[in-house]
């Protein structure tokens, strides 16, 4: 499996693991005509089985831990996991909560972290570009 299998258009699946919805709205904003991430072939799909990239938001509540793992396993390889928003990166404002099992990288391996609370749509696009670069670097090393 290689980046060539991705065929230059990354399809993304969005998992909300208990976020406040701020980041989710920014992800959708990145797909609106103003930012139009779809011109890069980035498309939001309805099932992880069609996805190349997992966009994970939220601090991973106890309930969502198992589901996040399952979604991760359902995503075909090669896949990229992006953690969007600081509550997913480190817990953010929920960092001491009794009800979280996060941050995300404790549950599934994360490739790109996007900081912000919420990050602007461009910051998310910037994250996708970095993910793309990582895939190319991995390909070049082979």
């Amino acid at each position: 499996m290689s980046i060539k299998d991705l065929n230059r258009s990354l399809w993304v699946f969005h998992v909300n693991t208990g976020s406040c919805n701020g980041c989710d709205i920014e992800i959708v904003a990145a797909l609106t005509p103003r930012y139009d991430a779809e011109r890069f072939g980035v498309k939001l799909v309805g099932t992880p089985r069609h996805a190349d990239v997992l966009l994970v938001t939220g601090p991973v509540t106890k309930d969502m831990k198992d589901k996040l793992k399952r979604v991760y396993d359902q995503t075909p390889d090669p896949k990229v996991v992006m953690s969007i928003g600081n509550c997913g990166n480190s817990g953010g404002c929920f960092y001491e909560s009794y009800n979280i099992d996060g941050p995300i990288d404790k549950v599934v391996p994360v490739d790109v972290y996007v900081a912000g609370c919420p990050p602007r749509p461009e910051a998310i696009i910037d994250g996708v570009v970095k993910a793309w670069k990582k895939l190319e670097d991995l390909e070049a090393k082979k």
Partner: protein
Amino acid sequence: MITMQKELFRQLFKRAFTNQFPAKHAPKSVNALLEAVGKGKAKLNPPVPVPENFRGKIAYDKNKCIGCQLCVKVCPANAVVFKPKEKKISYHTFRCTFCGECVNVCPVKCLTFTDEFLLADYKKD
């Protein structure tokens, strides 16, 4: 009908509303594009300008800081950590919620917001 045609005709010559950050289309190779940008051969489209008083990444002026720890106390996300030896703080971008409490409370104004917001990275801190 005529109104519609007029509108359609007008739209034909309007500039696209889309902000084409960072490039118009996906390049064949991101690495090649970034290399060209580094050499000044290509240019990336800038993001949409940030509004006034934008809360971006926080800048910390270490020399001005008096080590009062007020910022540590007000931070809701534990993003500011006190270093007792140096009597200074360290700030973690990947924990911050960009609420502005620390910027407001700092008595010597050594914490300030910058306009920087493209903060994606492969590892945190």
